[in-house]
C-alpha cells in the first residue's frame, strides 16, 4: 500500500503550490488596479478561495475520498471525458510551463542578461522531471524541505520596519485604480494552486480526513497571512504612488537589504524563490500527468513525463518577452480559475446525481 500524505505535508504542499512567481508583482497589482489600500482586496480573495476549498471538501465528503477521475468515469462516457482530460492536461501543463519561463526571464533580467533563457529553462525542467518521477509522496518530502529552506525569508520583512509609516497608507479605500475586474482575476491568480488538492484525495489518510481538509484551509489562510503582511509592508514602505511605478516591488525590497559584509543580496535571495516556483511548476505538471494518464494508462510514467515536459518545453519557446509570458499567464489564469471553481461544482453535480440514482460505490 502506498504511503499516505500526513495533514502537515498536505498543508505544506498546498501552500508551496500556491506561492510562486506572482509574489513579485502582487503588491504592485494591488496598488495599480485597486489604488489606495488595494491590499484590502486580499481579504475577499481569501474568503472566495476558502469557499472554493469548501466545494473541494464537499467533493471529498460526497465522493467518500474517491479519486475525481473514478467519480467522473463512473457516470460520464469516455468519449466526453477524454477531450476534457486533454483540455485539463493542456491548461495545467502550459500554465506550469509559463510560470517557469517567467521566473527564468526575471532571473535573466537580474543576472546573465545575454544568456539564452531556454538554457535556464531546461535546467529547471530537468529538476522538475527528477522530482516528478519520484511520485507524490517523495515529492511532498522534498517540498517540506523546500518549505523550511524558504520560510525564513518571511523574517526579512522585519528589515523594513524602520522605514515603515502608517501615514503612507492614506485613509482612502480602493480609490485611484483601474480595470478592477481584470485586476481581481489577476490578484486572485495569486491564490491558485489550492485547487490541485482535489487530486490529492487518493493519497490522503482516510482516518485523518477531517484534519487533511483542515490542512488545505490552513495552507490557504497562511498564504493569505503572508500576502497581507507583504502587501502591508509594501504599502507602508513605498506608499501607493511609488508602488504603482515599481514593476517588481518585491525585487526592489530584496535589493534594499544590505548587510555590512555583502551588498546586492537580491541575486542570492532570488535563488531561493526558485524553490517556490519549482514546486508550483511541478505540482501543475503532476496534475497534467495524472489527467493524461487516465487516457493512456499503459505508458510508463518516465516516458510520459519526457513526452509532456518535452512538449511543454517546445511551447515555452513561443513567448519570447516578459510581456508575452504575462499575457499567456493571465489568459491561462482565467482558465485555471475556471477549472478551480468549475471542476468541484461539476463533480458535486455528478455525485448528487449518482446518489439520487442510487449507484453504489462501496
Amino acid at each position, binding site marked *: 500500500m502506498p504511503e499516505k500524505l500526513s495533514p502537515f505535508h498536505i498543508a505544506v504542499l498546498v501552500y508551496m503550490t500556491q506561492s510562486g512567481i506572482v509574489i513579485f508583482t502582487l503588491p504592485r497589482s494591488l496598488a495599480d488596479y485597486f489604488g*489606495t489600500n488595494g491590499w484590502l482586496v486580499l481579504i475577499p480573495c481569501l474568503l472566495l478561495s476558502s469557499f472554493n476549498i469548501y466545494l473541494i471538501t464537499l467533493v471529498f465528503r460526497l465522493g467518500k475520498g474517491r479519486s475525481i477521475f473514478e467519480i467522473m468515469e463512473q457516470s460520464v462516457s469516455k468519449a466526453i471525458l477524454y477531450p476534457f482530460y486533454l483540455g485539463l492536461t493542456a491548461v495545467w501543463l502550459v500554465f506550469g510551463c509559463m510560470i517557469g519561463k517567467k521566473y527564468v526571464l526575471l532571473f535573466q533580467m537580474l543576472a546573465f542578461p545575454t544568456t539564452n533563457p531556454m538554457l535556464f529553462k531546461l535546467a529547471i525542467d530537468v529538476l522538475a522531471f527528477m522530482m516528478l518521477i519520484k511520485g507524490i509522496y517523495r515529492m511532498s518530502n522534498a517540498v517540506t524541505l523546500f518549505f523550511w529552506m524558504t520560510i525564513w525569508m518571511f523574517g526579512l520583512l522585519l528589515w523594513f520596519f524602520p522605514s515603515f509609516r502608517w501615514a503612507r497608507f492614506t485613509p482612502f479605500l480602493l480609490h485611484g485604480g483601474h480595470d478592477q475586474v481584470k485586476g481581481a482575476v489577476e490578484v486572485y491568480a495569486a491564490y491558485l494552486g489550492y485547487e490541485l488538492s482535489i487530486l490529492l484525495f487518493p493519497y490522503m489518510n482516510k482516518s485523518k480526513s477531517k484534519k487533511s481538509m483542515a490542512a488545505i484551509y490552513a495552507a490557504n489562510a497562511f498564504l493569505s497571512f503572508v500576502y497581507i503582511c507583504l502587501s502591508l509592508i509594501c504599502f507602508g514602505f513605498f506608499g501607493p504612488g511609488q508602488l504603482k511605478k515599481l514593476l517588481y516591488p518585491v525585487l526592489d525590497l530584496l535589493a534594499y537589504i544590505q548587510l555590512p559584509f555583502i551588498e546586492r543580496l537580491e541575486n542570492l535571495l532570488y535563488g531561493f524563490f526558485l524553490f517556490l516556483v519549482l514546486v508550483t511548476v511541478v505540482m501543475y505538471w503532476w496534475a497534467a500527468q495524472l489527467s493524461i494518464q487516465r487516457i493512456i494508462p499503459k505508458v510508463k510514467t518516465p516516458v510520459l513525463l519526457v513526452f509532456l515536459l518535452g512538449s511543454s518545453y517546445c511551447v515555452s519557446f513561443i513567448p519570447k518577452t516578459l510581456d508575452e509570458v504575462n499575457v499567456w499567464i493571465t489568459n491561462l489564469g482565467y482558465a485555471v480559475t475556471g477549472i478551480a471553481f468549475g471542476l468541484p461544482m461539476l463533480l458535486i453535480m455528478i455525485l448528487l446525481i449518482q446518489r439520487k440514482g442510487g449507484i453504489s460505490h462501496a
Partner: protein
Amino acid sequence: MLKLRLIPVLLLLLLTGCKSDERILEKLGMVQTASYDLLDNKRLKVTYCVPVTDPTSKVRRELMTTVSDSLKSARLQFSLQTDLKVVSGQVRETLYGTKLAKEGLGDYIDTLLRDPSIALGVRVTVVEGDAGDLLSKTFKSHNDTGRYITHLLDKESYGNSVPATTLYEFSRDFNDDGIDPVAPIVKDGGDKVVIEGVAMFQEDRYVMRIPAEDGIIFALFRDDLRQGEVAINLGDKDGRPVVIMLSSLLNKRKIKVHQLGDGRFKVDIFASLQGSVLEYTGEEKINESKARHELEQKISEYITAKADLMVEQMQEHNVDSLGIGTYVRNGLNYKEWTSLNWREVYPEIEVKCHTKVVIKDYGKYS
C-alpha cells in the same frame, strides 16, 4: 541509475551557456560614484569614479568624464575610454550639480531605477556648483573623493544632521502626494568637502536649501529620531555666548491638522525631545530642577522660533518637505483630497511648531 547520474553532468554542461555573461572581477570597472551636471547647451556632463583594485598601481581611482545626451549613453562612451568593462552594480553615490538639480532630477532617477543592477540604496546628493569638478578634485588624505563624500554623509546622516537620501527615499517622496523629497547638499570647501545643508525639492526640482546647522531642527520636525546632537546659542552673558549642547536626542514628532473650512487648514507640529546636556557655558545651576526647567523652556523657545522660520521659508518656496500634505490628506476623504490643489493651498495654511524639551541628564559633573 546511470541515466540519473548523467543528469548532474548535463546540468554542468548547461552552465557553459552562460559564457556570454561571464564577469571576471579584474576586467570590470565597477563604478562607485557618478556625477551628473547639466551644461549650457543642455547636454550632460557625466563623471564616473572607478576604484582601482590593482595593489601595484599608484593611483587609487580612475576618473572618466564625458559629455553625452543621457546617463546610459555616457556609459557606452566610457567603454571607449577604458580597457575595463564599465558596470554599475556597485554604485553607492550619485552626485548632481546645482544646475541639473534645479532643472529636475525625475528623469535621471527614473533611469537609475529602471536599471536592475542598481539598488534602491544608492545615495542621491546635490553638489553646490559643478558636481563633476568636485568629484575630479583630489583632497589631501583622501584618495577617493567619492568614497570620502559617501563616508562623510553616512556619518552625518547617522546623527540626523542631514537626511540620508537614497534613490528609495527620493523616489518614494517624489511619487507620494503630500510630501516633497529632500537631499543633502555638499560643496567644495577648499581643502575639504563640506556639508552645506539640506536641499529641498518641489516635486523633483531643487528649490531652496537650509543651512547645515539647522539640519537637525528640520529633522526634529520631519520624523521621529533616535540619535542626534544640537548646540543652541541662548544669547550672550557679559559678552560671552551662552551655549548649551544636547546630545543623544530622542524625538517624537506629531502632526495635528485642524480643518477650518473653505479649504483652509491649521496645522500644529509637535516635537517632543529629550537629550543629555554635555556642555553648558551659562551660569545657571543645571543640577537644580528649577533652573533646568527654565533652560528646557529656553531651548524649546529657541527651537520653535527656528522651526517656525523654516516652515515660513518652505511655504514661501512652496516646498512641503515636512510632509504636512500627507497628514492633511489623511484627514480628508478621497473626493476632498483630489479636488484640493495642495500646491495652491499649502503656502496659505497656518502652521505652528511646538517643542517640548526634557533634559534627561546632564552628564557626570554638576
